[in-house]
């Protein structure tokens, strides 16, 4: 299983890949919104936590189809399915690799990008904490969606369509916690709810995803 993790990370970095580019996309979304909305500082800093969360979510979403699609196309997935690793393990490892190359860098960079959107002072801290707790759920839910659509040629957009409603609870609690925290209100409830979603996803979704993968390989 370690071998699989190492390989996936290596591929992500080699391919000129997931690593830098997920981040870059996040940066560009946080840049585009001020261009679209206009430069007023008050409005920007009001919407900053929400937009940062949406940006992180989209950056995550865009790299989802890499999780299984490439391995499916070149036959690796067939071989992994017959290899002595349980499918659930494969799914979990691949979700972990996705988080390491996407969710984690996003989390680390978000406080800095917040500056572009005029994020106010405790906001940096809250964006970091909420993304740290929330992004693993995004990767795991995304892996489930990717497993559902893996057979379909360029299921990319279908994947987005399936995954986005699944992302909504995480987004709501995450953005709410970040907004409340930034405004100096208590953010404990949404934070706990989000942690619950993350824990639940990690515990249960690998099974659903493995089932979907097995069906798709038939």
């Amino acid at each position: 299983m370690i071998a699989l993790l190492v390989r996936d990370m290596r591929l992500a970095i080699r391919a000129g890949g997931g690593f830098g580019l997920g981040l870059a996309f996040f940066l560009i979304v946080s840049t585009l919104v001020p261009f679209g909305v206009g430069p007023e500082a008050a409005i920007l800093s009001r919407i900053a936590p929400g937009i940062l969360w949406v940006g992180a979510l989209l950056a995550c979403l865009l790299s989802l189809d890499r999780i299984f699609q490439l391995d499916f196309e070149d036959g690796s997935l067939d071989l992994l399915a017959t290899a002595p690793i349980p499918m659930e393990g494969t799914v979990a490892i691949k979700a972990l690799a996705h988080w390491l190359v996407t969710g984690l860098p996003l989390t680390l960079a978000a406080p800095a990008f917040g500056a572009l959107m005029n994020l106010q002072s405790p906001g940096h801290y809250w964006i970091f904490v909420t993304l740290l707790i929330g992004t693993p759920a995004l990767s795991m839910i995304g892996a489930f969606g990717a497993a559902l659509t893996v057979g379909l040629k360029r299921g990319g957009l279908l994947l987005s369509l399936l995954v986005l409603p699944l992302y909504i609870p995480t987004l709501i609690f995450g953005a709410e916690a970040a907004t409340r925290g930034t405004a100096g209100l208590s953010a404990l409830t949404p934070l706990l709810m989000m942690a619950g979603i993350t824990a639940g996803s990690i515990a249960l979704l690998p099974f659903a995803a493995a089932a979907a993968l097995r069906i798709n390989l038939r």
Partner: protein
Amino acid sequence: MSLWEFANPVKFMALSGKVLPWVVGLTVLTLVPGMIWGFFFTPEAANFGNSVKIIYIHVPSAMMAINIWVMMLVTSLIWIVRRHHVSVRAAKAAALIGVTMTVIALITGAIWGEPMWGTYWAWDPRLTSFLILFLFYLGYMALWAAIENPDTAADLTSVLCIVGSVFALLSRYAVNFWNQGLHQGASLSMDKEEHVADVYYLPLLLCIAGFILLFVALVLIRTRTELRLVRLHRLEIRERMKDV
């Protein structure tokens, strides 16, 4: 004879063929009088005039939209556990009706919102969770449409329906937490204080019964069509194999 036997396509086609005309008849007998009663023989509401009558479409369709998803969840589970073809076809059939109901509820609600709240759309929790439900229906149907092999499609959509239901519940809770809204409370509650006046209530009940029957009729028709489509797929295959 166990209930499961109706999950056999043979039994189902035979029985549904017999039942269908009766259901259609009953639908007409409840829905038409219900609508006419509601639209023409109830008083105008004091503060918001005739627009209140949209309730006879809005409320039943909104209720059905939710209940249909629940039915899809049950039938998907049955497919996963017992692999009855009728069951999963019924889920697929119901999705089409469910999404239509959702759209009707959204549109009538939006039309109603304009005189009531002065806006077509607000991020009220009820409305919001309906929008999310709409997205779930959309995803479910898109997945069906994207997969060619009927059995694979059945398996994958069932998995999606089950996982999706959990997340739909979660979003319902999340949305409530996120925003306290403008929308009406439950008008059908047993609590006399809460629900609307009897003049509106009785025709509403009739309309709701009509919508339920309408759904049963439509889902039977659609399921029969879906089963025929599967059959057609098989026949095509058989023909194809003959000429290899």
